[in-house]
């Protein structure tokens, strides 16, 4: 069955608000929704970053003197939840996905524009609810994992608001996932084959599969947890005959794939950025596609490596160690592909490229510690120490957040039609890179020496290293200033970008900057070789 377009219905243009008011409306334009996701996510990033600074100030001294211990627990819970559910997941999926995917498949919008707008508008209320829970009776204190029995015994109201908020955000994420799958599979321009799609489409297809398969399990689990808290049932309460390990299994069935939900889109984005600024085709397109799908499949069967100390039986430990180690194979393939893309390229050292290279460097560290953590004997030693904190932040900050910044530098000219200032961009990168490594590299040492995470007080022997880490956090906080100045100034006074400042070949650069409402003036272009850099020159020879 096909659907034809009724010309009479498409004629109520005047109902849509114009100018900046669009960004506060229930707009159905995928580009507006993408920017809504990005700006909303960035505001929550600032809140989450402030909380992170508070944590590092507290940890600059061994005693809990900056804030009471229960407030510290609330701060770290809010920091984790905000950064994961309100900054990284919405931005790296929702913002860039909504902006870029319709261009990449040659469509005028997403498959379900209304669902798309609903998915976005679930985010601000649930985020505000989460932040506001601090002022009720204190926010949730059980960490972003909300492990029972801790989450059952801490004050109820904060935990319940936390659950409601995460349920809404999960719903938003599922709606987004359905939309991306339908757009990529069903809405491709006639003549565009799957294996001609830019890599970000593949990354988003894999991510959306993970979202659709795993997020509902988290939703179900949190509903059971809320029954335990409100109705006094005993699903996860050992006193009432329940089983806490079942919660951990169900939680990590979502939350391990969640790591891939955060990092796979970043893999896709870096695969778009590197070829443009290195002027070379993406190395190993087919292997890249298969490794993404390999990560999706393996990512669903490794969750129990978070639970090696939860009384997990030996056969299960063995299986999950092996499965986790296997994930290093597709990830390694992608990694070598990026390095091979850079190899012998005509590399321009600009902010986008620097952040992408920073990603590659940080991600090697995060990847290696990840393989180490998959080994049971090592994991038992460092479980719940700062080693895990360092590993995690190397993946999600050093990996994904670096790519978010890289993507902002790369696509800002397309979105606004203005170039960002390169000097401020390079300053931003330098401070971020130094600050990030100064903050998190020492935490490996802290963890190996036994400093537990999520505790406001620690052994005084760790003070010096913690202060180095806090200094790094200060640099990271400062690094936001040149970025904000850069964005705000360039939006007004930046130099005009033109339609295609990077001479890129992917479809979004083949329309005007900023793009018109339905993406193309005429028919969408058929881009069969999104990475065909250097082709013409070699053919001329």
């Amino acid at each position, binding site marked *: *069955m*096909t*659907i*034809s*377009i*009724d*010309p009479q*219905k*498409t*004629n*109520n*243009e005047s*109902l849509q608000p114009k100018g900046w008011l669009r960004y506060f409306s229930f*707009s*159905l*334009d995928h580009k507006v929704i993408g920017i809504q996701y990005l700006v909303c996510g960035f505001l929550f990033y600032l809140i989450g970053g402030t909380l992170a600074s508070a944590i590092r100030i507290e940890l600059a001294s061994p005693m809990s003197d900056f804030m009471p211990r229960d407030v510290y627990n609330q701060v770290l819970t809010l920091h984790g939840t905000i950064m994961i559910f309100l900054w990284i997941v919405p931005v790296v999926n929702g913002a860039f996905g909504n902006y870029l995917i319709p261009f990449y498949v040659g*469509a*005028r*919008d997403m*498959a*379900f*524009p*209304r*669902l798309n707008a609903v998915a976005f508008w679930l985010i601000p209320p649930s985020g505000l609810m989460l932040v506001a829970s601090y002022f009720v009776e204190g926010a949730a204190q059980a960490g972003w994992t909300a492990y029972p029995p801790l989450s059952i015994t801490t004050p109820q109201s904060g935990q319940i608001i936390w659950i409601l908020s995460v349920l809404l955000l999960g719903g938003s994420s*599922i709606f987004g*996932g*359905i*939309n991306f*799958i339908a757009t990529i*599979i*069903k*809405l*491709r*321009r*006639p003549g565009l084959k799957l294996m001609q799609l830019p890599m970000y489409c593949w990354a988003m297809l894999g991510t959306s599969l993970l979202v659709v*398969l*795993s997020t*509902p*399990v988290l*939703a*179900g*689990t949190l*509903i*059971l947890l809320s029954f335990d808290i409100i*109705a006094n*049932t*005993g*699903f996860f309460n050992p006193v*009432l*005959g*329940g*089983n806490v390990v*079942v919660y951990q*299994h*169900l939680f990590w*069935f979502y939350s391990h794939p969640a790591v891939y939900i955060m990092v796979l889109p970043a893999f896709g984005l870096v695969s778009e950025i590197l070829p443009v600024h290195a002027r070379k085709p993406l190395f190993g397109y087919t292997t890249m596609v298969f490794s993404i799908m390999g990560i999706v499949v393996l990512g669903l069967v490794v969750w129990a490596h978070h639970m090696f100390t939860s009384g997990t039986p030996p056969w299960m430990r063995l299986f999950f160690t092996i499965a986790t180690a296997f994930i290093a194979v597709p990830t390694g393939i992608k990694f070598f592909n990026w390095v091979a893309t850079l190899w012998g390229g005509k590399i321009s050292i600009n902010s986008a490229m620097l952040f992408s290279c920073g990603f590659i460097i940080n991600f090697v560290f995060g990847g290696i510690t990840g393989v180490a953590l998959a080994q049971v004997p090592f994991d038992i030693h460092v479980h719940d120490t700062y080693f895990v904190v360092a590993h995690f932040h190397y993946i999600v900050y050093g990996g994904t957040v670096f790519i978010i910044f890289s993507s902002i530098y790369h696509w800002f000219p397309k979105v606004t039609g203005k170039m960002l200032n390169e000097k401020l961009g390079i300053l931003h990168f330098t401070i971020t890179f130094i600050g990030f490594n100064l903050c998190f590299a020492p935490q490996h040492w802290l963890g190996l020496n036994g400093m537990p995470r999520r505790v406001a007080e620690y052994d005084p022997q760790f003070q010096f290293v913690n202060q180095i880490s806090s200094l790094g956090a200060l640099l990271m906080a400062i690094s936001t200033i040149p970025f904000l100045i850069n964005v705000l100034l360039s939006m007004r006074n930046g130099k005009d970008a033109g339609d295609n400042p990077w001479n890129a070949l992917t479809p979004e650069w083949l329309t005007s900057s900023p793009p018109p*409402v*339905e993406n*193309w003036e005429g*028919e969408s272009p058929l881009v069969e070789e999104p990475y065909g850099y250097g082709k013409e020159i070699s053919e001329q020879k």
Partner: protein
Amino acid sequence: MTTLDSSKETQKNNSVDETHEDFRMFGLITFLIADGMTFAGFFAAYLTYKAVNPLPDGAIYELELPIPTLNTILLLVSSATFHKAGKALLKDKNSDSQKWLFFTAFLGIIFLICQLFEYFHLPFGLTDNLFASTFYALTGFHGLHVTLGTLMILIIAWQSRINGGRLTSQNMFPLEAVELYWHFVDGIWVVLFIILYLL
């Protein structure tokens, strides 16, 4: 030609006649897979509890089978009557279709009444023990799906009225979507019936 109004109007994938395939069903199937994963999580939790958490002595019940068996039959029959409604609408027999839809909704309501009747006559309450909690969580979550389904059937039954209804043989999607959802809910009930009552 620039307003983004709804999925069917905005999505022109630039073929010459500016039409595209109808993928609303595709989206619904993706959603049902997600919904099925929620149930899969609940079932996995229930089976794990059964395997590793021994219940205290007073907490092992022989569940009465007549009502849930009747409920299984009700839902299976309602799937068939829903299918009849679709067939009738395809042949432009709107009033027949409407009758079948109302009958399907009636079966759904009977199912819910039987479910409530069973709840009131069970020897355990929500917080009595782990089995009781899981039992109510599973059947309750499924009952919520049946409630939503019944409401949706009533809505499309109203929409299939002869004068001015938007549900016609040219616009079958609302009926097809609710039908797929209803079959899905029935399928979940069969699995639930097997692992909760028979295992």
